[in-house]
């Protein structure tokens, strides 16, 4: 039968219940971890990408820009003609693909990290002002934000990128600004919810001033949803940066980035598939990890959701 809304009076969180044996408790914790194993995978993937970005010069076996035309288009090691000196093969100019992917993580992580910082800061400022002041300010700001969110996002990003020209700073600014509405919307929603809740009202009644209320009551409540959102948005930015790079609208072609590598590999799709395949796998790996991480954070940081997921 297909519904499960009967009440049971058991408390699954009652780890401290005296009637439970140690075996029960260990089994219960193991179950919790097992259920969250996707989150662990997400954390591991994310940290590995960040490590690649931070320590690229020490990890990468070659200079990502060093050309070696005699060894160009060498296949990865598991294909015929591949060798361990270039595990993921080389591109059309003989550059080591593994090294370029490791260095490419720098562009992706930089864009994702600073893009999210800018977007979250802008969004939090706009959203908390709108949510806190309410009234006409709120409806004008939210009207504009809903406009931005209903537009075909990619088209406008491509448009601005084409106008501004290729540079890392431009890409970060574009994502930081265009992505702020979503942060503003979430912030505003939370601020409204918290402002209406009893404890903030009682704090106001007790004579608390609004900077105190924001710092002491609203910010702590915002952190959970915003961190979750930031994870998903960072993943989306890494995605879109690669897309812009693919169209030749992101960082200059001299910088190794996953999008630039894809764009270059497109020409050799028939003769050397791996040039395009490898950076794509890197994007997928990162994005998969960050989505798993985001799902997990959402569950962990929002106890209401965690309860309902059981």
């Amino acid at each position, binding site marked *: 039968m297909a519904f499960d809304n009967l009440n*049971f*009076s058991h408390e699954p969180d009652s780890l401290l219940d005296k009637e439970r044996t140690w075996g029960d408790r260990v089994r219960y914790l193991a179950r919790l971890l097992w259920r969250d194993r996707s989150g662990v995978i997400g954390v591991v993937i994310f940290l590995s990408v960040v490590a690649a970005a931070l320590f690229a010069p020490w990890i990468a076996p070659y200079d990502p820009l060093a050309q070696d035309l005699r060894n160009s288009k060498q296949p990865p090691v598991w294909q015929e003609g591949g060798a361990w000196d270039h595990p993921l093969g080389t591109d059309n100019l003989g550059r080591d693909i593994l090294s370029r992917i490791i260095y490419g993580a720098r562009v992706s992580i930089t864009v994702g990290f600073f893009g999210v910082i800018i977007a979250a800061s802008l969004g939090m400022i706009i959203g908390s002002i709108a949510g806190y002041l309410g009234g006409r300010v709120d409806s004008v700001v939210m009207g504009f934000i809903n406009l931005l969110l209903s537009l075909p996002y990619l088209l406008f990003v491509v448009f601005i990128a084409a106008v501004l020209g290729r540079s890392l700073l431009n890409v970060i600014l574009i994502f930081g600004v265009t992505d702020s509405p979503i942060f503003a919307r979430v912030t505003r929603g939370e601020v409204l919810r918290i402002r209406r809740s009893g404890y903030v009202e009682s704090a106001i009644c007790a004579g608390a001033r609004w900077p105190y209320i924001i710092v002491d009551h609203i910010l702590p409540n915002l952190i959970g949803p915003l961190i979750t959102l930031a994870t998903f948005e960072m993943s989306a930015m890494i995605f879109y940066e690669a897309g812009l790079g693919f169209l030749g609208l992101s960082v200059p072609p001299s910088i190794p980035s996953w999008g630039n590598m894809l764009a270059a590999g497109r020409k050799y799709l028939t003769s050397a598939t791996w040039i395009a395949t490898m950076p794509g796998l890197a994007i997928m790996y990162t994005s998969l990890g960050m989505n798993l991480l985001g799902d997990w954070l959402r569950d962990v940081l929002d106890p209401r959701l965690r309860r309902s997921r059981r």
Partner: protein
Amino acid sequence: MDRILEVRNLVTRFYTLDGVVHAVNGVSFDLRRGETLAIVGESGSGKSVTVLSLVGLIPKPPGKVEQGAAYFRTEQGRIDLLQLSEEELREVRGGQIGFVFQDPLSSLNPILTIGEQIKETLTRHLNITGEEAKARTIDLLAEVGIPDPELRYKAYPFQLSGGMRQRVVIAIAIACRPQIVIADEPTTALDVTVQAQIIDLFNHLQQTLNMAMIWITHDLGVVAGLADRVMVMYGGRIAEVAPVDDLYERPAHPYTVGLLGALPRLDSKESKRLVSIEGTPPDLLIPPRHCPFARRCRFAFERCWREMPELTPLGPEHRVACFYDMERGGPRNE
């Protein structure tokens, strides 16, 4: 006595991620033609699961009826509900057994008209045309006291008040003239005045249609003006069964006494503070081998922690599962 339903030793469990929930642990009772049996208990006492198990309405998985029998007397003879196939059960549900659930707003589909929701029961069980079903539906709406039934036929649930919605749910339950109506906390979600109206409607329908009724509630106050007999459940077991007057006058189980104490009384002179039963309901994940109520019982003594009390007769229709004799004020003699 004309028994329409005999339940014997029903055991239902839920196999959840957190362990096995022992929801119903060997429950036996009878239902007589035309009577109202109230099943009373806290949430988690197993009262809903007991009844829903009979007609295959518990979620499976994780739920499973482990053992027991439920003999249902129909015109075709005596059948064991627990042995029926899902297909045969579908004939019984809505046809011979009707249901009324707690919250009338959520138990109606928000995007279908109420007429459609009543009509589909009729066309499912009776061999009639759409036109006839529509006419019957309008009659049913009038029967449960909904004004302007032709107009309301096309209304959506959100356009009706809570009381009116519950009348619609009742119309669905009685549409096919069932022999038994199972009402699971049918007045809990309603205002007090509306509650009284709905109880009146149930009383009226029961007399005119001569159907038996199982009324599940956690509120002993509602039971008084309605039930013939009361069955009190605790921890998935029967604590006490008695005719309604007996139960109010001579409650024999400490838990029943507690429930009665928790009732606000309008007739008492002094304004006493409301009494509630201390402690939490039992954890059904760990079924005790002793009396499940012992932990919360004021009268518990050594035997209560050692043995499981069986239902023992006190009078012709009064049975209790307790080692303590309330009237004598000491352990019960064997």
